[in-house]
């Protein structure tokens, strides 16, 4: 005679807590007893017990996840951050570290910890479309978290950890599915994009049901304190009071906070911001070596001819800057390779009206190109690579130079692979793998974009230089980043008596770009470039200058304005009313804030 027992037996311990006894196992046991089997193996029974024992969460607040990810060694500030989010912020936090300190690692640690503890299963990660695959890769490779990119509708329901772009998720039919779920964990990368309450993105995210929530952003305040308020409202509505209360208590003007101590205290309960300057990250050193080269006679003739050509066109156009900038590119290209300048000339030829006398001039330049046999820079580069005798990245601005270099290296028995922005993800990954495992040299035209972490290499050769300092910094940043254990060596090739020489002077001596990481380079440039970009100013300078000395003094001027903008920013930051100063307290692990928290 059998009674089926109810699947759950609930007993009260005290006014705070009840015990739920799960009884689903019992009916199965009774069935097996009645049928006298089948019985499981005694060894497997023991192993099951041992497996549970090994994974037992024996303490409320020790970090268990580190034992599960032996291949990853998080930095101390990342571990501190994870602990603080788990134990003090209760799993709802804004991770606002400055760029490059590893917010993704922190989020991964927190997610992994909750998963190991069985507190999180269903997870949604919303990121910009371009970062979806990178997140999937990092969670899988570094954390062993089986994250899946949302591609088909069934992924929403069938996969536990889904990475999707917010723009996809907010559209039907996805929207309805996502809002119908309950997520144990919601992670949003680049969360500053949610600063405006009225956008569909904000409203969509606000409707998602979630238990724990992490918002990642390096810039929690860009312009306005309200942005921060809106972010916190997503996380913990009421943390800073209602909107009216917030404005009355904490805001003088949209960029000016008041009652900063209290604001900082409130913020420190929901936000962690580690800074590069806090000394929690040790970067290796950078060594810069400029290598001046002299063009061969043929190359010099080409350079001079192209320069004359550019000047003439500029005068003919009655100094119309807009259409002339592309011509300066020709001068830059000559300094890189004859292949680069050839491609541009051919295109220019095609665009020029059939009977224009300019066509003849272009043709003359092409003729000069034909006379050039060797590439001074490429030979020097090869010599360098042989001396380095280790992995190296060669950056160039031009695809034609890239192709030329790959072939040139091949002829000289140096294995190299190309890398450029236009390649699809799979091909990029493949090139990375080849570089890591087989090739000595990577020839890259692109430094930006996600997913190229090249810490295993510490030599960079700038075959030519971008005129935008941010792009230079991006190049170096691919190698000089967290995880780089060796000092980074940067070689800048420049040709004497060309515009390249001037640019290098500006970037190296005036802006001092190579030796140190300039904090907030983007902010400085933003201020400097109020009317037009640095790059545009340089183009103008080159076109207008009558002589080398003109260029030199122009470069001097630009360098000076950069210095001033930098000093101005530094001064502002020491003033209490700089909006970002409101962020100074949270999450910096110094004694002053050690006691803050619930």
């Amino acid at each position, binding site marked *: 005679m059998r*009674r089926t*027992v109810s699947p759950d*037996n609930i*007993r009260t311990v*005290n006014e*705070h*807590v*009840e*015990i*739920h*006894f*799960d*009884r689903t*196992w*019992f009916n*199965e*046991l*009774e069935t*097996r*007893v009645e049928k*006298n*089997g089948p*019985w*499981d*193996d*005694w*060894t*497997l*029974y023991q*192993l*099951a*017990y041992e*497996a*549970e*024992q*090994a*994974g*037992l*969460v*024996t303490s*409320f607040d020790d970090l268990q996840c580190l*034992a599960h990810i*032996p291949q990853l060694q998080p930095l101390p500030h990342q571990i501190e951050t994870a602990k603080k989010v788990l134990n003090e912020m*209760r*799993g709802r936090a804004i991770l606002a570290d400055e760029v490059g300190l590893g917010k993704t690692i922190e989020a991964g640690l927190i997610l992994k910890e909750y998963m190991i*503890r069985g*507190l999180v299963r269903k997870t949604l990660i919303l990121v910009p479309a371009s970062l979806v695959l990178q997140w999937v890769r990092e969670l899988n490779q570094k954390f*062993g978290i089986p994250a899946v990119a949302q591609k088909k509708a069934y992924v929403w329901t069938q996969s536990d950890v889904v990475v999707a772009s917010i723009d996809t998720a907010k559209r039907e039919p996805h929207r309805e599915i996502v809002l119908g779920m309950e997520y144990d964990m919601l992670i949003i990368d680049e969360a500053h994009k949610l600063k405006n309450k009225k956008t569909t993105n904000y409203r969509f995210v606000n*409707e998602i*049901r*979630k238990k*724990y929530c992490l918002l990642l952003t390096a810039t929690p305040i860009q312009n306005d304190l309200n942005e921060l308020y809106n972010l916190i409202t997503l996380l*913990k*509505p*009421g*943390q800073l*009071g*209602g909107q*009216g209360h917030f404005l009355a208590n904490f805001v003088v003007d949209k960029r000016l906070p008041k009652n900063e101590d209290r604001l900082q205290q409130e913020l420190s309960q929901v936000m962690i911001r580690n800074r590069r300057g806090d000394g929690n990250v040790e970067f290796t050193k950078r060594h810069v070596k400029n290598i001046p080269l002299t063009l061969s006679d043929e190359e010099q003739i080409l350079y001079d001819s192209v320069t004359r050509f550019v000047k003439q066109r500029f005068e003919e156009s009655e100094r119309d800057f807009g259409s002339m900038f592309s011509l300066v590119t020709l001068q830059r290209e000559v300094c890189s390779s004859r292949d680069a300048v050839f491609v541009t000339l051919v295109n220019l030829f095609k665009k020029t009206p059939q009977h224009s006398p300019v066509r003849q001039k272009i043709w003359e330049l092409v003729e000069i190109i034909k006379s050039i046999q060797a590439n001074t820079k490429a030979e020097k580069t090869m010599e360098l690579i042989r001396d380095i005798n280790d992995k190296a990245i060669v950056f160039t601005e031009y695809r034609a130079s890239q192709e030329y270099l790959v072939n040139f290296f091949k002829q000289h028995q140096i294995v190299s692979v190309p890398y450029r922005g236009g390649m699809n993800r799979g091909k990029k990954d493949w090139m990375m793998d080849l570089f890591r495992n087989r090739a000595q040299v990577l020839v890259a035209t692109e430094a930006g974009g996600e997913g190229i972490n090249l810490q295993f290499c510490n030599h960079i050769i700038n075959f030519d230089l971008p005129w935008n300092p941010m792009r230079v910094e991006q190049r170096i940043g691919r190698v000089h980043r967290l995880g780089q254990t060796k000092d980074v060596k940067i070689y800048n090739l420049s040709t004497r008596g060309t515009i390249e020489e001037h640019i290098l002077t500006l970037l190296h001596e005036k802006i001092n770009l190579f030796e140190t990481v300039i904090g907030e380079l983007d902010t400085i440039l933003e201020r400097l470039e109020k009317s037009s970009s640095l790059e545009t100013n340089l183009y103008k300078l080159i076109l207008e200058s009558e002589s080398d000395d003109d260029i030199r003094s122009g470069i001097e001027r630009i360098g000076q304005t950069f210095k001033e903008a930098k000093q101005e920013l530094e001064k502002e930051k020491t003033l209490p009313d700089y909006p970002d100063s409101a962020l100074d307290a949270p999450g910096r692990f110094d004694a002053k804030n050690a006691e803050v928290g*619930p």
Partner: protein
Amino acid sequence: MKPQQIRKFVMRYLEATDCRIIEKSPAHVTVKFSPEADKALTNRSYYWSFIERTGAEPETMTCTFVFDPEKMRQNPDNDNKQAGTVPSSGSILGAYFGIIPTAFSGRVAQDIVTYGSRRLEQIFAAVKAKGKYICLFEEPEAQKRTSAVSSGYTTWLGVNFKVELLCDMKREELHSLGISLATGEIVEQFHPFMLAKRLSPRLPANTHITRGSLTLHKGLVQLEHHLEKRLKTYDHDWAAKAQERMGAELARIDSYYDDMLKTAEDDNKPLIAEQYANRKAEIEWQYRPRIQVSVINCGLFHLQSEPAAAL
């Protein structure tokens, strides 16, 4: 778990599931799976359902588990081993249905089996699924086996409980309890006690089992009751604190939405109210303290009578 513990664990699993060890070192093992292990570890449900429907001869996979990647790298011999050939059975059907890598190139898939690795998680899941219910008999000592007198056996219900103390955080405990279905006596640390005995799945000759006075169900209720009493003696400050946090969070939300509802236009009120309700539910979900007791595995242990003396 350290590499050597994991190695021992995995080797016991492979042995218990009748896998064939092809090669082993302290750092690795190369193994040809038994059908049981193959089903549990290779994610080839389609292949196995095909084999079962057609009765074709199954071709199981071969795999190398690396317990200590560092040591594995240091030993240059292993480079060859990685690509070592494995005798292929030449089964055409097998090649057709999923074992192409082994049959053609002879390359053996290599998995790192460290703590936290997916492979080990998979093996953990496999033992948890296949090591749930057992029924064992204590093997009599030599002289008793030959004795003319039938020896009496008492049946014990052994249960390994997992206790989870949950709020927004979590702590766990294992409680292994056994109850004699003859006398109702309860023993703690039952599992380690069983490990010390010689147990077999077969009823030894010349033995009889004393009929118990307790039903299984009664045993279950008694064990739960015992555990409940134990848990009640704990300091449940953690739960009080979680309640406190939940209260504070709810108060914060209340004040935020109360203000908002007061000033909102009538059209917007239902929407805000809905959001309010959702936020409240989230907080309960996150913080509400509770104790969850589940069972890892359980079984019947037939022990020679008077075990109490031995405890």
